[in-house]
């Protein structure tokens, strides 16, 4: 009994300490610049670029190792994945990714890495420690979006020209089902409870919500912005808060991020960000959301609680992806 009280007190103390320490812990955001062949490093507290690192050609997808010590970057035109040491900013090794890696997702255990090979209609699964290809899974034309169920058992890949979400078993590496969505699906994101999968369709202009158990589209979210052509509304990146209350969807050349009630699927507001916004990433505390704005060559920072854009940070040429350190 008394032990529990002590434990409870220390949690309170910790909470107070965090509250006193200002807005947020400092995280590091890594932004790939598709035409700059570089990664811009941003301090989440100061919201300023602290370094720019050289990587392979046409860097797009980006993610971090579980401990945040290694940064993985798809060097699409070099047909490899560069692994950078985040303490030095140097490429320490490269992974055999198969041709034209575009997006990838790391297994919850930290290994393997699931890679979408855009030019080659396949998903490559790589053991990142042994730098060994474990499997190649044939999928639709121009595979891109990669989502992993929270339990790590189901991998979802979207293929842009086949217009499908492919469900892949992560034990057998077999495609177990395919769900047709709207044109040019770019991104797949599971809800934290694993029950629903959100898939954006860039050309279709919609976000499909798929019931994971039934593998059936149960809702199509559409967007309407006054003074913006419907054709300019091109959903790409999706992020859903851990509590499942809000979803943020990047709308490409509409230059907006949609804020959606993730329970009722109602679009609540559109936040103006930079031009051609594609990918999104939360800070681990989910207080900030970073967006990559390809045409305006900058990153917008959204304050999640107030749902306001608080900063725009110039980065390299054609920012594509963003990953944020866990610590």
């Amino acid at each position, binding site marked *: 009994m008394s032990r529990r009280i002590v434990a409870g007190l220390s949690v309170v103390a910790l909470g107070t300490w965090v509250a006193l320490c200002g807005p947020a812990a400092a995280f590091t955001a890594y932004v790939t610049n598709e035409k700059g062949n570089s990664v811009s490093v941003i301090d989440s507290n100061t919201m300023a670029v602290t370094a720019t690192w050289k990587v392979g050609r046409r860097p797009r997808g980006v993610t971090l190792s579980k401990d945040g010590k290694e940064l993985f970057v798809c060097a699409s035109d070099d047909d490899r994945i560069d692994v950078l040491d985040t303490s030095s900013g140097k490429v320490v090794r490269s992974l055999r990714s198969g041709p*034209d890696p575009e997006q990838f997702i790391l297994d919850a255990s930290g290994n393997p890495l699931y890679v979408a090979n855009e030019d080659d209609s396949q998903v490559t699964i790589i053991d990142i420690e042994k730098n060994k290809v474990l499997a190649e899974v044939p999928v639709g*034309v121009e595979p891109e979006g990669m989502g992993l169920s929270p339990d790590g058992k189901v991998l979802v890949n979207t293929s*842009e020209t086949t217009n499908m979400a*492919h469900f892949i078993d992560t034990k057998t590496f077999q495609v177990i089902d395919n769900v*047709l969505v709207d044109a040019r699906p770019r991104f797949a994101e599971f809800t934290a409870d694993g029950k629903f999968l959100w898939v954006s369709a860039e050309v279709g202009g919609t976000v499909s919500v798929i019931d994971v158990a*039934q593998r059936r589209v149960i809702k199509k979210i559409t967007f309407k912005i006054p003074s913006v052509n419907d*054709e300019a509304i091109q959903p790409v990146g999706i992020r859903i808060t851990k509590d499942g209350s809000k979803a943020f969807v990047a709308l490409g*050349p509409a230059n907006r991020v949609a804020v959606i009630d993730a329970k009722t699927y109602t679009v609540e507001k559109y936040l103006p960000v930079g031009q051609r916004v594609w990918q999104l990433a939360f800070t681990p505390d989910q207080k900030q959301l970073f967006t990559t704005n390809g045409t305006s060559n900058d990153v917008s920072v959204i304050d999640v609680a107030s749902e306001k854009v608080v900063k725009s940070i110039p980065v390299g040429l054609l920012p594509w992806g963003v990953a944020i350190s866990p610590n």
Partner: protein
Amino acid sequence: MHNPAAEIRVRSPAQRQWLRAGLAVLALVPFSAWAQQPAPQPLDTSIGLIYRPQPAPSSYDAEAAPEDEGLAGAKMGIADNNTTGRFTKQTYTLDDIALTDDKPDPVAAAKELVAKGIRYLVLALPADAVLAVSDAVKDTGTVVLNAGAPDDRLRGAECRANVFHILPSRAMLTDALAQYLTVMRWRKIFLIVGPTEADKAYADAVRNSARKFALKITAEKPWTFGPLAKARGDTPTRAEAMVFTRGLDYDMAIVADEEGDWGDYVPYRTVDPRPVGGTQALTPTTWSPVLETWGAAQAQNRFRRLAGRLMRPLDYQVWAAVRTVGEAVTAKKTNDPAVIAPYLVEPEFTLPAYKGVPLSFRPWDHQLRQAIIVVQPKALVSVAPEQGFLHQRTPLDTLGVDLPETTCKFK
């Protein structure tokens, strides 16, 4: 692809228990009967292509049309359809006929394909051949996809209910160029018209676009100096050609030379320093090797691997025609043309085709709505519809003939 053992893993614990109990049953019942989404029935769709390979050039031509122009685009479209088809149990095959001097008749070719049961014919042929084929196959329910004839008459007075136009009409192309001129405030046009009927039709389209976007044709001259762009080196006519542009008041010269005989001779040789556009130099078109946005880079790479050369506009147009069939058959789960043809003009049908916007068909003339790129040989210059050109339906309908103006009456 269905693997029951794998599928069990992703189900809820309750379902899993039920499944364990029912495993013996499962072994007896076909899996598809049990799954929520019924397994698709295998479906094979054969698509015909009729094209006429360009004759080899008489002398060196750096950009001569390759023999498989159009055909290679069809092959990529079929490959793309089949990659998708792997997951829907749909297969697609191509049956192509190249018209030659020994076998010149497009109608005979069409009948040969239709007799084999083919109900989708992609044509990379001139307007008269499109009309002849569409009339010849009218009673067979065959869907004709026009991938090569830009003539406005096919979308107007001579439109046919069984024809869908994949490539833009000349009116759409010249409207795209006119929008760019409007944005640049280059209002005065010097129009130079070649000797062929196609050149005259292009010039007509330029005149209409100029009227539509309040541009002014301040000078117009026929080209009478022969195929100078194909002549070797320099010739004495150079001075003459320069003189012919003297004393005119214009912002841009627009050349109407669909054969590519002389249009490339005009840039940098006008007396006054003026930009040149139209069928050469700054060109409104469907495709260019310099297009890389909206996923086009992937298509360029895929095509180059498949064909060993760069993708040309005709390749892209035939690819889009084949993909149109694939996209509609995937959505409707049937290849019955009586279902597919009406579906193509429904708002639900959209074709993603590397233009950043979904493409769809205009119900009034079966023209594929599309963004049009405005390019010079080494760079993308602009994309029409330009910003600020608005339309109550879609900005794409600011290009070409709109519903109130159409002269098409499907019978």
